[in-house]
């Protein structure tokens, strides 16, 4: 079974040289720590930055330079700043190659819920609805089940929808799942996890790929 770092490591294998990537808050952010050798990716921050660098040193801290999580950051060589309309414009136009998001629920058709829990204080969707509606390649990074052990891979969302039919792949602590016309297709299982465990923990339609293999992380 993977921890959150393992999930991030596995997703990092999806990165290709020259990719423009938007990483959501939480596990997705960790993906930046595992960019493969020889691969250069450019991170997009939807508040208006291409080329997010590492966190700053004490001397570099600049209140005018933050990421979408409102954390102080730096820039990399070749970075650029722009306004929020252009930022979401490039997302909407499919120019971002890969978007990695957390989620509370994903369905076997690729629907996603990740912005609101009824009865809890609503904080807002921020850029989540724009990202899921427009990004051309969305991978969800999340735990396979919630704290009560309920599957988060469902046939229909129980929580308010963020976007429909948009997720392409889900990487959980148990495995890798592509969204196909037949529902979730398990292509990899995490080390130490059995297919039976995955079947038991998945509520949506699930197919096991004939070529399923143990994840290499």
């Amino acid at each position: 079974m993977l921890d959150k770092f393992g999930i991030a490591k596995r997703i990092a294998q999806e990165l290709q040289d020259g990719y423009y990537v938007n990483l959501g808050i939480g596990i997705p952010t960790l993906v930046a720590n595992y960019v493969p050798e020889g691969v250069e990716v450019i991170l997009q921050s939807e508040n208006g930055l291409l080329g997010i660098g590492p966190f700053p040193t004490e001397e570099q801290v600049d209140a005018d330079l933050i990421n979408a999580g409102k954390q102080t950051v730096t820039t990399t060589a070749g970075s650029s700043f722009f306004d929020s309309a252009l930022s979401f414009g490039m997302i909407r136009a499919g120019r971002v190659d890969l978007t990695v998001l957390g989620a509370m629920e994903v369905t076997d058709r690729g629907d996603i819920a990740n912005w609101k829990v009824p009865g809890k204080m609503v904080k807002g969707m921020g850029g989540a609805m724009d990202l899921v509606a427009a990004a051309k390649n969305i991978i969800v990074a999340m735990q396979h089940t919630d704290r009560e052990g309920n599957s988060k891979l469902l046939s229909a969302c129980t929580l308010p929808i963020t976007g429909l039919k948009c997720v392409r792949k889900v990487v959980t602590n148990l495995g890798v799942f592509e969204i196909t016309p037949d529902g979730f297709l398990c292509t990899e299982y995490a080390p130490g996890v059995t297919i039976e465990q995955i079947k038991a923990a998945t509520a949506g339609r699930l197919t096991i790929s004939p070529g399923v293999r143990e994840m290499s992380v």
Partner: protein
Amino acid sequence: MNKVVSNAAEAIKDIQNGQVLMLGGFGLCGIPENCINALVKSGVKDLTCISNNAGVDDFGIGLMLQTKQVKKMIASYVGENAEFERQLLSGELEVELIPQGTLATRCMAAGYGMPAIFTPAGVGTEVAEGKEVRNFKGKDYLLEHAFEADFAIVKAWKGDTHGNLIYKDTARNFNPLMAMAGKITIAEVEELVPAGQLDPNQIHTPGIYVTRIFQGVNYEKRIEQRTLRS
């Protein structure tokens, strides 16, 4: 050509109760600190505020919530703000949540004289309720209307006496979009220079969009998440 005013109090003095304001900034980054403070002092109330966020309890738009000057907040993410939550739950404050890209593009539409735009954000969600859905080439989009705001209040890094503006780094965010979108646009800048001193090739907001400009004072520029390299 007389756009320069002496300070925030003068810049905002004709804002009336019940008007619609746009306020630039993302989180606490690039917010018009001077004008927010002046609005708090002015006591103007029943405002509708369009801004990506609502500040924190003791900074930014949060200050205007403390004084109950805001009737309605239109934002994409209202974050951690205890007073905001209290007013929302008690029904004192009305809130409309809008996807961030839609918020930005509805500002841009106003600045470009486009009455409405199409975006896929929110299709199939509660954001789509009551909205027109239209399919282009197999994909559904929502029709979203340009904002109309009485005032846009923005913060820039440098500005000149003709109202030309340059923003710094990610403090740009919504500022240039809102600067284009207000019936009246007020810009506060860290450094105000005579026309002719800024490179015309590097202006982010042409002065035609700016009605009033002043040099702000005492910027705090509070940081929400001070993250350092380990």
